[in-house]
């Protein structure tokens, strides 16, 4: 028997120790025929079954006070951890709630921004805003005119310089 065949046989013998339920019916029958004619496999199967039987004690069941003892420990753990507002808030702030809060904040910001730009303003509030814009325009116009005046003044000065030069040359 090759090492590979022997390995498979060991696996199957272990399965046979459990009654062979994990094996196919054909494999189980073939293996049983082999075991019937092989003393080494008979001994191996017997020893495996004996080991499992000796180790397989009935399950222990929890005693009556088991649950109470555990919950007393859990209560003690909870009592050690002060339930602060922020601790509660952290527990409350699960990812879905965090996303919902973010969405509400985003919508609020959009509404504020839109109202400041006039996009969503009511008709009665648009007049004062228009006046303010007009005032800005007037102020801008005055500034432009001042600039033009300054430019003109510069030009006058230039002319005066040219005239003075002409007079000197003349």
């Amino acid at each position, binding site marked *: 028997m090759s090492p590979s065949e022997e390995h498979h046989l060991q696996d199957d013998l272990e399965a046979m120790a459990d009654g062979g339920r994990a094996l196919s019916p054909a494999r189980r029958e073939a293996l049983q025929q082999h075991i019937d004619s092989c003393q080494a496999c008979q001994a191996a199967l017997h020893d495996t079954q004996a080991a499992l039987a000796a180790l397989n004690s009935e399950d*222990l*069941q929890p005693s009556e006070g088991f649950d109470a003892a555990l919950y007393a420990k859990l209560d003690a753990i909870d009592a050690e951890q002060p339930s602060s507002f922020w601790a509660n808030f952290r527990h409350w702030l699960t990812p879905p709630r965090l996303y919902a809060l973010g969405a509400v904040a985003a919508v609020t910001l959009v509404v504020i921004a839109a109202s400041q730009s006039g996009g969503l303003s009511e008709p009665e509030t648009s007049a004062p805003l228009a006046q303010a814009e007009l005032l800005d325009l007037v102020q801008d116009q005055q500034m432009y005119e001042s600039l033009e005046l300054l430019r003109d003044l510069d030009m006058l000065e230039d002319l005066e310089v040219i005239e003075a030069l002409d007079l000197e040359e003349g």
Partner: protein
Amino acid sequence: MMVRFVKTRDRRLFDELFRRYRNRMVAYAGRYVRSRPQAEELAQEVFVRVYTSKKFEARATFKTWLYRVATNVCLNELRKPEHKNRIEPMENDEVESGLGGSAETPEGQLHGRETSMRLHTVLHSLPRNQQAAFTMARLEGLSHAEISEALSLSVPAVKSAIHRALEALRAEVSRLSEPDALTPETVS
């Protein structure tokens, strides 16, 4: 459910998990320490760890994660010096081992208990992975895939660990089957 419990700390979710697995965990711990008070103590430690756990990855099943926690708790307990060479027989030990001696006679029962204690001693002397894989597979009925997840081993490694454990136990059974293997001095 464990994922929701870690997020919400809702004790009702914990109660449900506890209700489902309390018996299983006491029985599992009992396979290592073989004493009801100690098994209950260890099972409680397992559930305290569940209760105080800060994270749980949803890709693992709760069952295999719980067995991983329980295995660590139990094997760490067995490392303590007071457990060295101290395998106690349990009242519910299977006494019909098939190794000579009928369970119907006092001598046969004593023989069966001694065999059980010897095999538990062998089992507890094995490497951690072999001990845990064998216990989960042969005594708890977990599948190879579940054990693979619980112990973070490949399925072939799990099969190999179980096979090696069984070989060691079979060798002990074979030795005990020899005449005079259990002398009156050893069966005390």
